[in-house]
């Protein structure tokens, strides 16, 4: 057993590539659990951050600073009555949330959290992710149609139109990133790991490559991915003030929570694509400027440090808790939480752990940045109208994406091009 673990740890490929089914299964479990936990954390963070942007406090009662609120919500949702409307198409109604959740989770098969930290590495990784996440539309249409109600129907129609149109712009942005992998290193790849390695080899994140081309492609993707996941300001399919709750109006309890899970899962998934394609995936910041063993060491200490900071924040919270009996349990809970964070930080100081985990840390940190953006947008922007949304998609992002692809290709092959031109002129 120990031997198996050791053999795995020393290996340099993902379990999928190695054909190691045991480890692949473990990874899948880890990913599913991890994503679920991340969704819980996201739920709490979104509420807190949004609340503070709106000069509120957000959840404060369940657990210290509302830390247990998502858990309480999950319990509530699971114990709620499960309603299937009378006129609904039962089978489709039942299967829609399953489809949505499955597609959201399946995409994570190819997400590389680190060099070896992925379930598998496919040579068509990006396409796989795009394809699977597009399947989510199917679930949404199923949900809207089978509910046999007006609001879900309108919501799902909006959703499908929106996802389909933004997928094209998204595709162009991705193509330009993929093009970049084929330049200089010479071998283009669609593998997620391959793309990150290409960025490593070229010693630049693709967002900075051929400035502003990489940045433009990234911006297109960043806008399209918000639309793709139906989040504000593109949250028309579930526009609360217009369509009540859009395609999941008729859902309740566990089924509703599956939609919720899928939404956040999809957000994480598209953010992972963005991170992988443009922000260097698991690579630490500034690999080219701040290179050298000392900097490597410094950056590998960052995960532990950030955990210490979090622990410090929660200990500060402990100190600032009101000193009244009602809060004793909460204060103790927060203290425990802070200590736990500190302990994790300590573990991360251990060199063996440190080296293996820092990839994941950088990846998660970058994804977290995107998650913050999602919340920030939601707190700030009004909602687009349907036709305006389509206009942005088709008239702005699509031509821009097309242009970026063409210019990237031209710039990428400019040396050869010059050679050819010189040949012609001669």
């Amino acid at each position, binding site marked *: 057993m120990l031997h198996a673990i050791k053999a795995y740890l020393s290996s340099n490929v993902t379990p999928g590539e190695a054909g190691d089914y045991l480890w692949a299964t473990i990874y899948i479990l880890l990913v599913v659990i991890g994503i679920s936990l991340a969704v819980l954390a996201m739920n709490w963070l979104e509420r807190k*951050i949004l*609340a*503070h*942007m*709106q*000069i*509120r*406090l957000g959840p*404060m009662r369940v657990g210290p600073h509302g830390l247990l609120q998502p858990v309480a919500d999950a319990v509530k949702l699971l114990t709620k009555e499960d309603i299937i409307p009378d006129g609904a198409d039962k089978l489709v109604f039942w299967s829609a949330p399953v489809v949505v959740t499955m597609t959201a989770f399946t995409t994570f098969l190819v997400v590389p959290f680190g060099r070896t930290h992925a379930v598998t590495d496919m040579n068509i990784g990006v396409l796989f992710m795009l394809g699977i996440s597009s399947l989510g539309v199917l679930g949404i249409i199923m949900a809207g149609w089978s509910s046999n109600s007006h609001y879900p129907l309108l919501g799902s129609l909006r959703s499908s139109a929106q996802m389909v149109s933004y997928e094209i712009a998204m595709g162009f942005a991705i193509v330009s990133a993929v093009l970049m992998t084929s330049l200089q290193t010479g071998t283009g790849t669609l593998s997620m790991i391959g793309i990150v390695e290409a960025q490593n080899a070229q010693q630049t994140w693709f967002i900075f490559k051929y400035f502003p081309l990489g940045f433009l492609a990234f911006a297109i993707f960043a806008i399209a991915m918000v639309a793709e996941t139906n989040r504000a300001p593109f949250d028309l399919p579930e526009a609360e003030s217009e369509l009540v709750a859009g395609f999941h109006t008729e859902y309740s309890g566990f089924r509703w929570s599956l939609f919720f899970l899928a939404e956040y899962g999809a957000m994480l998934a598209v953010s992972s694509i963005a991170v992988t394609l443009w922000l260097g995936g698991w690579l630490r910041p500034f690999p080219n400027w701040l290179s050298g063993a000392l900097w490597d060491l410094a950056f590998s200490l960052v995960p532990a440090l950030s955990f210490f900071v979090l622990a410090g924040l929660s200990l500060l919270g402990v100190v600032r808790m*009101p000193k*009244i009996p*009602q809060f004793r349990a909460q204060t103790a809970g927060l203290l425990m939480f802070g200590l736990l964070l500190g302990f994790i930080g300590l573990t991360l100081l251990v060199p063996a752990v440190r080296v293996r985990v820092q990839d994941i840390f950088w990846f998660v940190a970058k994804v977290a940045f995107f998650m913050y953006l999602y919340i*920030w947008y939601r*707190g*700030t*922007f009004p909602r687009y109208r349907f036709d305006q949304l389509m206009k942005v998609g088709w008239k702005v992002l699509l031509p821009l994406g097309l242009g970026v692809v063409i210019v990237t290709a031209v710039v990428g092959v400019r040396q050869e091009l010059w050679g050819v031109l010189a040949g012609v002129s001669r």
Partner: protein
Amino acid sequence: MSLSPVLRKVFLVDLVKGLKVTFNYQKPSEAVTEQYPLERPVIYERYRGQPRLNVNPDTGESLCIVCNLCALACPEQLIVVKGERNPVTRRKEPVSWTYDLSRCMFCGLCAEACSTDALELTQDYEMALYSREGMVLDQAALEHGHEPVRYAK
């Protein structure tokens, strides 16, 4: 900033401005939430809340002289006062006093009408009850204020 409108549009100045506002408000000190049962709101002197029937603090006698003005002034006619003349002091004293809190809209007309400052709307605002029955206050409840309700199952 003296950017041309086109540039402003391209660089999303309008959106960034909004983002800046929301970002700056994230400071915990900006939050205005009151955590109610722990933090009590400030209630000002003229607040019209739970009605109270004042008693003379020295003698413990009700200040009410059963003039019935409050009952007449009440738009909802929810005050019923019955009294009889005390043979000893020659004062009219209330015998039964009811105040139906469930119909009260706290307009304050009764307290304004009261000629002896007996009826008063106080600063107490926690009046919710689990049943309608407890909402009809009698004289004792009006004089002492009702028991604070513990909102728990």
